[in-house]
């Protein structure tokens, strides 16, 4: 399946590229040269921004400290800003070179490892670093994230030295934890879901896993090196220590982002506002219509039922007593979104209004039919068709404008510890979804959010996963996605939104007759059989 960057493909064909699609997390995809990122303000010839040079970010920390999570989250943010970033999980290389189902030798991480283990280690490191150099030197890459344990001070010093020879700065990011509960939660949520632990009680599995780490990696030195650039994240972001010898713009920006990041995983739901009395008017800020209220009610019921099912499923697997995080609701300040949240608020859920989440301002296009817009603004329409993401109609906002103004919301999104339901206009959902799933800017205006589905985004440390939850019994006329820009209203089914150009040249994982903009509506979302395999292999890799 071409939507998963497997270890084999990463190692055996390092310059392997796959096309991104809009319904799986594209964070491990390689962006095309010509692409602009969602919040990128300008591009440069070299593709490198802010005169910050090339940086290798090396993670430091024992397994289950959230290194991969930090790597992926950081890459997501940097890519969103337009910085060419790629993650190199050393584990992928280790796994591929050792071979599937095989573990590394017991002394692999030991300081006094046997000669054969040292050779193996060197072989794996060499392959990974060659790819890093290629990315930074020949693919206009700016930031390579080197996701590895890097447990020893001496090793880190020589790593920084080696990168420096290639004119690459090294920034270490250590994830350190002295709070046993955080470590255990991490192990529970990402490490023991593998088949290795089927039939184990959770507590035993956690204990076994941690013991294995302790045996495998007995030596670990926390970062204290005064002469290196590093950021230490302590207890999932409670405290950060920064050692700055030569920070550039991007390094400071990374600190800023990390200040908003935490390691706990939580779900994000997206849903649209109900239909209103004055559906077409942007300025009117109308209240919900009776149909819209009916939608709000059904959406609420579906969401709560779904969460209850999830809770039960976790309990059945022998999970903790409080498997679900509390749910918080964010709306824009527009009446329709606020009113859509009323049923949830009545049930005691906390609702917050955020003015940055107002829909894309349609400017002169408000209340106008596509035909009229084509008549009145033929030149604008031509420009719009060329670049629907960046073009703005007179007095209107572009998607890019919306993305830039949503940055504080995105950081708050990272900061939020509870499950989160976002009720907003489709234009806002598109942009936020584009961030969470690392979509190409060009695809964002065409993402489709039919009203009869709640989108659920489940973060995993390696990539995010999106599910769609069907809201039953809605009148068909309120379902369609709102049209992109000047496009005519979408066909009523909401499943056949035409998406020109997208997915061409892509071995679509979906059956024929299904537009790629519409994800599989199956209950399991996009979780493919490969996923679970992957997880089990990953288990070997870290330990």
């Amino acid at each position, binding site marked *: 399946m071409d939507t998963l960057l497997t270890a084999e493909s990463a190692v055996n064909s390092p310059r392997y590229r796959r096309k991104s699609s809009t319904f799986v997390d594209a964070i491990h995809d390689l962006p095309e040269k010509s692409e602009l990122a969602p*919040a990128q*303000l*300008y*591009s*440069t010839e070299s593709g490198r921004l*802010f*005169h910050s040079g090339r940086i290798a970010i090396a993670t430091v920390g024992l397994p289950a400290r959230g290194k991969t999570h930090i790597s992926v989250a950081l890459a997501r943010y940097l890519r969103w*800003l337009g910085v060419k970033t790629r993650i190199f999980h050393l584990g992928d290389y280790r796994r591929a070179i050792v071979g599937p189902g095989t573990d590394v030798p017991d002394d692999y991480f030991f300081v006094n490892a046997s000669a054969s283990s040292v050779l193996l280690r060197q072989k794996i490191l060499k392959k990974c670093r060659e790819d890093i150099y290629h990315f930074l030197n020949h693919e206009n890459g700016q930031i390579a994230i080197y996701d590895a344990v890097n447990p020893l001070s001496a090793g880190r010093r020589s790593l920084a030295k080696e990168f420096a020879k290639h004119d690459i700065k090294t920034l270490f990011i250590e994830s350190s934890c002295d709070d046993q509960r955080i470590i255990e939660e991490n192990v529970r949520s990402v490490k023991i879901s593998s088949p290795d632990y089927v039939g184990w009680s959770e507590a035993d599995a956690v204990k076994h896993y941690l013991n294995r780490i302790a045996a495998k990696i007995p030596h670990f030195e926390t970062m204290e090196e005064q002469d290196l650039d590093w950021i230490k994240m302590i207890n999932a*972001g*409670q*405290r*950060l*220590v*920064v*050692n*700055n*010898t030569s*920070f*550039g*713009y991007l390094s*400071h*920006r990374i*600190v*800023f982002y990390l*200040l*908003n990041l935490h390691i706990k995983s939580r779900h994000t739901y997206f849903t649209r506002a109900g239909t209103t009395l004055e559906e077409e008017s942007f300025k009117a800020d109308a209240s919900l219509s009776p149909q819209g209220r009916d939608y709000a009610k059904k959406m609420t019921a579906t969401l709560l039922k779904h969460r209850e099912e999830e809770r039960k499923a976790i309990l059945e697997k022998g999970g903790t007593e409080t498997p679900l995080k509390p749910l918080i609701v964010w709306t824009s*300040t527009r009446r329709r979104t606020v009113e859509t949240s009323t049923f949830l608020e009545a049930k005691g859920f906390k609702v917050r209004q*955020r*003015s*940055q989440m*107002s829909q894309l301002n349609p400017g002169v296009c408000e209340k106008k039919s596509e035909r009229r817009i084509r008549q009145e603004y033929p030149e604008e329409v031509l*420009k719009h068709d060329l670049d629907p993401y960046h073009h*703005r109609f*007179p007095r209107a906002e572009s998607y890019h404008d919306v993305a*830039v*103004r*949503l*940055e*504080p*919301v995105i*950081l*708050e999104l990272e*900061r939020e510890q509870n499950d989160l339901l976002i009720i907003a206009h489709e234009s806002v959902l598109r942009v936020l979804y584009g961030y969470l799933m690392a979509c190409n800017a060009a695809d964002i205006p065409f993402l489709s959010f039919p009203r009869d589905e709640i989108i659920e985004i489940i973060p995993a440390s390696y990539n995010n996963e999106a599910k769609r939850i069907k809201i039953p019994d809605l009148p068909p006329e309120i379902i369609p996605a709102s049209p992109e820009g000047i496009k005519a209203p979408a066909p009523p089914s909401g499943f056949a939104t035409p998406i020109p150009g997208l997915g061409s040249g892509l071995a679509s994982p979906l059956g024929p007759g299904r537009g790629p903009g519409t994800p599989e509506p199956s209950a399991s979302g996009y979780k493919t059989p490969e996923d679970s395999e992957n997880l089990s292999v990953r288990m070997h890799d870290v330990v």
Partner: protein
Amino acid sequence: MVMVGLPARGKSFIAGKVKRYLRWTSVKAEVFNVGTYRRTDNPHPDAKFFDVNNPEGEKARKAAAEAAVNDMLDWFKDKTNKVAILDATNSTKSRRQWLHDRIIEANLLHIFVESKCDDEDLIMSNILEVKTSSPDYIGQDPEEAARDFRDRIRNYEKVYQTIDESEKHLTYVKIINIGERVVINLIQDYLQSRLVYYLTNLHIKPRSIWLSRHGESEYNLEGKIGGDANLSERGERYAKLLPELVKRSGLPKDAPLTIWTSTLRRTSQTARHLQQELGWEKLQWKALDELDSGVCDGMTYKEISDKFPEDFQARDNDKYNYRYRGGESYRDVVIRLEPIIMELERSENIIIITHQAIVRCIFSYFMEIPQEKSPWMEVPLHTLMKLTPKAYGTEVERFKADIPAVSTWRPKGSTAKHHDSVSEGMPDTVVGDMKNLKRTGTPATNADGGVSGGNETGHESVFDDEVLGLPLP
């Protein structure tokens, strides 16, 4: 935001900068300086006043802190006010706990900002700066003042407690030796994280920033805006004179300069001789390109007002927020300049050759010019500005090259091609003649309590939520 640290650690400097930065990004901010409150009763105290064993001094200082905190909490009653900065030493744990309790009681968020420094050179250079400009020592012998100030610091050192493990319930950022090491604890929201981001970019080493527009361009002569034209013959002469002009403005000893230009031809051409003759490194920034005037690019103001009369009017009504069709507004420019500002804060001596709107935005950041004024600021061609940050403000010097150029300044309502005030009566033949260099010094402006840079234009802003300011490019 509560400052913590011994005297001469740059607290007031940081407080002032944070206030200016926030206002530039449309966040209402104010500094409450406990020293100012204390000075009303004790205008020129000597070091004994600050001795912990002097109960009278202790009492007076506590009363000043009370008054400042009360005023600060009152200030928050206006819900549009967002960030108050309490500038004082707050050097003991008990004082910080008292502040913490007062702030929590008022249902506000807090962040303690400690500046800790044990680099003697840095402290001394700070003392020298403060002794000449602190209101405490007005009219006193500088040597005497410096000595007294050192004694004052020693008194504080006796009781100073740095923020440590026992205060881990506080939200704080501890900046050690101007950012060599930073400890950041319990950040609670986005705005706090942004403040920390800004703070970690600051330094207090002495330096200057030179700002100039490009030399007169062919488009300037024709009264056209935008484009990517070459320099005019007079613009070329300015470029040639620039190395001399920069030298005349006073260069720091042994400190390298870096030249920043936009990616447009006219700024690179203007920097050419500077780069060749003085051998400085040059960086091109796309973010320094001129405000994009969209469909109006390449037009004269007259053409714009003929072709888009409504737009022209709309721009005059609210120039800061007006966005050219297919182009940018000043607000947009400020957003894209954010990386430039951060880099400027991090860097030392920089000379920037850029464009009118960009100079206005950068200048406004340093000088705290409000949004309703900054887009109308006059920035003449062929004039070099030197900005030097000082503890209590930024000093501006202007160096005018005696090379005539058109004026591209357009007052509200006017559609004139250009207001040619500069070239009148000026000899056309003084290339390189330094005798005719005019130096106009404007000492430190932007004093505290200046005009607010808040977004008060009535424009429906997208930043008016509790999370304010730039969405960051």
